C-alpha cells in the first residue's frame, strides 16, 4: 500500500502525459477543458507546494536551533526574521496597503532590490576570487590535456575583454573571429552537444525507470 500505490500513481500519471502527447488537443478534452494544460497546471500547483515545504523545513530547523539556544542561534534568528519579513508582506493582499503584495514600492520589492539582489551578486562576485585561486592551483601545464585547458581558458578570457581582443587583433586581426568560430562555435559547441545528447538519453532512461517503479529513491527507498 505505502509503496505500491505511489508506484501505480507515478506510472499512470507518466503514461497519461505520454498518451496526451500523441492525441490532438481537440480529442483530449473533457467538456471545454483541455487535458494537457490542465494536468501541467496541476503539476505546477503541487510543485509550488513542494517549494513551500522546503521553506517550512528551513523554518523548522532554524526555530529548533533558536528554541534550544544552540551555538550561533542568533544567526538562525536572523534567518527566521528575514524569511518572515520578506514572506508575510508578500502574502498579504495589496488592497490593504501599497506596501503589501509584490508590486513596485512594496516591502517585498524593496527588500528584493536593496538586500536580496545586491547580496546575490556579491556572493557570485566573491566566486571570482575563489575561481582565480582554484585556477592558480589547478592550472599547471602538467600534461597535454591540462595545457589545452589552460590555453583555451586564457584565450577565451582575453577574447572576452576589449583590451584582450585588441591584443589578440594586434597579433593577427582574424584571431578574435577565429576563436569565436573554431573554439566557441566549433569544439565547445560539439562537446556541449555531446554532453546534451548523453544527458538527455540518461534523463529519458531515468524517467522510464521512475515510471516503471524501478527507481524509487524519491520515496526515500
Amino acid at each position, binding site marked *: 500500500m*505505502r509503496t505500491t500505490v*505511489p508506484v501505480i*500513481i*507515478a506510472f499512470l*500519471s507518466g503514461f*497519461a*502525459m505520454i498518451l496526451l*502527447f500523441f492525441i490532438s488537443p481537440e480529442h483530449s478534452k473533457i467538456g471545454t477543458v483541455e487535458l494537457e494544460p490542465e*494536468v*501541467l497546471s*496541476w*503539476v*505546477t500547483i*503541487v*510543485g509550488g507546494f513542494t517549494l513551500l*515545504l522546503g*521553506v*517550512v523545513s528551513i523554518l523548522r530547523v532554524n526555530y529548533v536551533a533558536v528554541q534550544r539556544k544552540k551555538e550561533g542561534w*542568533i*544567526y538562525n534568528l*536572523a*534567518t527566521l526574521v*528575514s524569511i518572515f519579513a*520578506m*514572506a508575510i508582506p*508578500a*502574502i498579504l493582499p495589496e488592497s490593504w496597503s501599497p506596501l503589501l503584495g509584490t508590486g513596485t514600492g512594496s516591502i517585498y520589492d524593496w527588500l528584493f532590490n536593496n*538586500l*536580496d539582489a*545586491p547580496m*546575490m551578486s*556579491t*556572493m557570485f562576485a*566573491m566566486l*571570482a576570487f575563489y575561481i582565480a585561486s582554484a*585556477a592558480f592551483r589547478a592550472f599547471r601545464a602538467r600534461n597535454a*590535456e591540462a595545457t589545452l*585547458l589552460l*590555453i*583555451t581558458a*586564457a584565450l*577565451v*578570457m582575453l577574447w572576452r*575583454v576589449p583590451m584582450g581582443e585588441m591584443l589578440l587583433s594586434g597579433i593577427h586581426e582574424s584571431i578574435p573571429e577565429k576563436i569565436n*568560430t*573554431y573554439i566557441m562555435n566549433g*569544439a565547445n559547441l*560539439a*562537446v*556541449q552537444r*555531446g554532453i546534451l545528447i548523453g544527458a538527455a*538519453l540518461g*534523463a*529519458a532512461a531515468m*524517467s*522510464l525507470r*521512475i*515510471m516503471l517503479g524501478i527507481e524509487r529513491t*524519491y520515496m*526515500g527507498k
Partner: protein
Amino acid sequence: MTWIEFVQIWIIAFFTISLFSFLYKDNPFYRIAEHIFAGLSAGYYVGLVWHAVILQQMINPMTEGGKWWLVIPGILGVLMFSRFTKKYHWVSRLPLAFVMGNTAGIFILSELHGKVIPQLRSTMLSLNPAQGLEGFLLALIITIGVISTLIYFYFSKEHKGTLGAIAKTGIWFIMISFGAHFGYTVMARISLLIGRILFLIDDWGGSIIWLFS
C-alpha cells in the same frame, strides 16, 4: 540625494562589505549577512509561489473561473506536509509520485523529441569540401567532437584500441570546452565583481561625500 537614499545605500554597502569580509576569514558580520541572505531568498520564493502558483493557478481559477476541481492538486500539495509527521509521513509519497510520474512522462518525450533528435539532426552536417574551407573545417570539428565526446562517456566497453583513441580525442575536445567555459564563467563573475566595486566607489563613496558636503 535624499536621506532615504542615503540609508538605503549604507544598508546595501554594509551587507556588501560584510559578505566580502569572508575573503579575509569567517567572521560574525559575514555570518549574519549570509543568514539574512538565505532567509530573504527563502521568503522571496514564498512570495513568488504564493502569487504565481497558488493565487494565479489555483485560487483565482477556482473562485473566478469556476474550476472547482483545482482543489484536488491543492489537497495533494497539502498532503506533502505529512512528511513532518512520523506516523503519516508515507502519505507525502502520493503527491510526490504524481509530480515525479508526470515529470517523467513529460521528460521522456521532451528529452528525446526536443533535445536528442534536433541535436543529432544539427550534427549531421555536410562534409563536402566544396562548401569552402571554413565551413568544411567547422563541420569536421563538430562531427568529430560530438562523436568522440559521446564515445568518451561510453563506459560499457574498455577504452582500448580504436575506441581508446577516439575517447582520447574526446578528452581533448572536452578540455577545450571546459577551458572555454571556465574563461566565460570567470569573466561573468569578474563583471559582477566590477559592478559591486563600482557601487562601493560611486554610490557609497558618493554618499560619504554628500554627507560631508
